[in-house]
């Protein structure tokens, strides 16, 4: 079981991007030594790792990080520039569904054609044709031309053919991005089956939730380099944090900020911390989050209350906790000093979306604010299992049944 399915060592891939897109002979003749008219792009830099047989490996990273290039090298679509690739076992030769599909051909003919591209013979496909169209739920459309199919139907057909490939090592590039929810559920069932069968699967995806659920291990690529390799939860967690750090939430998500107040206290910073106390802007649903409000005192304060309001990106007020209702009185510090108020949420109940926070420092209910920032400090929540709705109500299911 611990046999190595894939071994990579020192793998590099360089692309030569022509600076002018003319691939004409005239140009080559006129500029015989024109190699300088290319820009080199190092898509993979000295990548080494091994994948044991039966492992479910997720490969994650930003667009252009080299993860798809790696998959193409494993599929033999690209040849590596240097380094070695050792593969034990038959690798599925495709990265995408429906390669070679032709819209002028019928579903049946496309099964034979696409199947052949995936290495299946007409004989094999003929015996499984019913099963393929059945799984795709296209039984009554077998002899219709593909161009009359909806894109959803085409994807279902393509997936049904693809799962017929009997390879020990399967490569999948963003398969999950297609199809509706019920079809994705089917994909997951097939993944679960592959896992039981002990096949080696390499999945390149942006769906961190799928990596968490199905992969034993994850590898993170950044600019062609392997930066993280470990248990899937650990690597996706790290990726979520770094995403929050680097990609400052875009302007669309940043609400217009209104601010007013007497100025006797000033909000200097608001940060969101994860469980480890590290600031980030993207959180998983159900993970702990601590809101930290930093302020500075500029005047004599008798009393100080800190109030928050959580808004959905469209402004809907979701919750309005404050230190008064939370029975946590703040002793106002003297002029010139600073202070911090924290609000910890043990398990963030919000689901996927963009959110903003209103922060209000005021003496007591009904009096003028010291400092009021309305709908600022954006953060994002990602629900890894993609539940619909706004909040996780935290309810517990139970059911009982009577046997007859």
């Amino acid at each position, binding site marked *: 079981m611990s046999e190595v399915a894939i071994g990579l060592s020192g793998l590099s891939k360089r*692309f030569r991007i022509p600076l002018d897109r003319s*691939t*004409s*002979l*005239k140009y*080559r003749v006129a500029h015989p030594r024109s190699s300088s008219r290319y820009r080199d792009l190092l898509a993979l830099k000295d990548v080494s790792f091994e994948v044991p047989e039966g492992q479910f490996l997720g490969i994650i990273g930003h667009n252009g990080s080299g993860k798809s290039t790696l998959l*193409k090298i494993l*599929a*033999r*679509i*690209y*040849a590596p520039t240097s380094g070695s690739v050792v593969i034990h076992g038959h690798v599925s*030769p*495709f*990265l*995408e569904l429906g*390669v*070679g599909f*032709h819209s*002028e*051909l019928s579903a049946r*003919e496309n099964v*034979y*054609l696409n199947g*052949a*591209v*995936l*290495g*299946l*013979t*007409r*004989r*094999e496909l003929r015996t*499984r044709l019913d*099963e*393929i169209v*059945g*799984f795709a739920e296209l039984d009554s459309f077998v002899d219709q031309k593909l161009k009359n199919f909806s894109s959803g139907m085409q994807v279902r057909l393509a997936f*049904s053919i693809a*799962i*017929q490939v*009997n390879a020990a090592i399967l490569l999948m590039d963003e398969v999950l991005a297609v199809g509706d929810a019920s079809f994705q559920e*089917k994909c997951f*069932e*097939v993944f679960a*089956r592959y896992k039981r*069968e002990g096949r080696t699967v390499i999945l390149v995806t942006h769906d961190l939730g799928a990596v968490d659920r199905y992969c034993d291990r994850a590898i993170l690529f950044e600019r062609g380099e392997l930066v993280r390799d470990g248990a899937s939860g650990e690597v996706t967690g790290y990726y979520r944090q770094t995403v929050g750090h680097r990609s400052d939430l875009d302007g669309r998500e940043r609400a217009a900020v209104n601010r007013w107040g007497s100025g006797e206290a000033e909000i200097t910073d608001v940060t969101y911390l994860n469980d480890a106390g590290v600031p980030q802007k993207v959180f998983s649903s159900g993970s702990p989050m601590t809101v930290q409000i930093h302020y500075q005192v500029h005047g004599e304060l008798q009393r100080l209350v800190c109030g928050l309001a959580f808004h959905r990106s469209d402004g809907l007020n979701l919750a309005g906790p404050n230190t008064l209702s939370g029975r946590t009185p703040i002793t106002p510090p003297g002029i010139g000093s600073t202070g911090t108020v924290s609000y910890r949420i043990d398990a963030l109940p919000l689901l996927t979306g963009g959110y903003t926070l209103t922060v209000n420092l005021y003496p007591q209910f009904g009096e003028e604010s010291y400092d009021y920032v309305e709908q600022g400090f954006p953060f994002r929540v990602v629900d890894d299992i993609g539940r619909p709705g706004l909040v996780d109500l935290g309810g517990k299911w139970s059911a009982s*049944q009577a*046997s007859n």
Partner: protein
Amino acid sequence: MKAKELIPRLVRRGAPAVALVAGNVGRPAAEEPSTLDRQYNLVRELAVTQFRLKYTGSVLGYVWSLAKPLMIFAIMYAVFSRLLRVGAGSPNFALQLLVAVVMWQFFSETTAVGLQSIVSNANVIRKAYFPRAILVIAATMTAFMTFLINFALILVVFIPLGRLEIGWQSLLLVPLIVELYVVALGLSLLLSTLYVFFRDVGYIWEIGTQILFYGSAVVYPLGFVPSKIQRLIVVNPVAQIIEDVRHVVVTRQVPLSGAVLGGYWFAPLLVTLAAALLGLWAFLRWSPQFAENL
């Protein structure tokens, strides 16, 4: 226990094929087709698909494949034989011309389709792996099938009419057709490789085909030109094959290429071999880089 069983049953009801699919995975290795079987299967599927797609939406369908060389023959016959009286001295020149046109059509069509075969399948190449030569072979096979049918039709129609000279020498037709396919495939491999990197090759080959057409003694008998030039022409394998086929099925009064070349009878074979090897070498050398250059 009861609740546990409920889950798989429900899943199966929603998607009946899941259970069936699972059954396929454990197929014994013994009934697995070999890699060669699978590659042959792909060539066949691609060739059949192209053949089918070619005539999709046309009323006459395959008839066009026959009509086209016949029309070209009719034009050539009218212009060169009747108007310019080019083939007047050569016996049975109409049939010589017909046979030559059908073979020429095969050669020019195969190399034109073969040249495009990699670039036009860019999408498949970028997303799936299989030996790339399969695409070229499939493309040339489609034209080859058409050619074989057309050529067979000529034999079927004109042998009973007694217009062809069939004898033991006619058996040479088989190696000659094989040679024609080898030249066309070798050139297709070379051209399709070059075309990935230099799109000018498309235009160059179009002109090259025209030059070869008039340089191949299709529309005129070889004897029409001075004997020194005859030798030069016949070194080109396409001209040699056309000449030899004329000899073995149309009339023995057309000399074999070997008679024209004398001691150098093997020269066109060397050219064929060189074209095939060069094409194969270039293709194998550069095909790993196709995906990233398309």
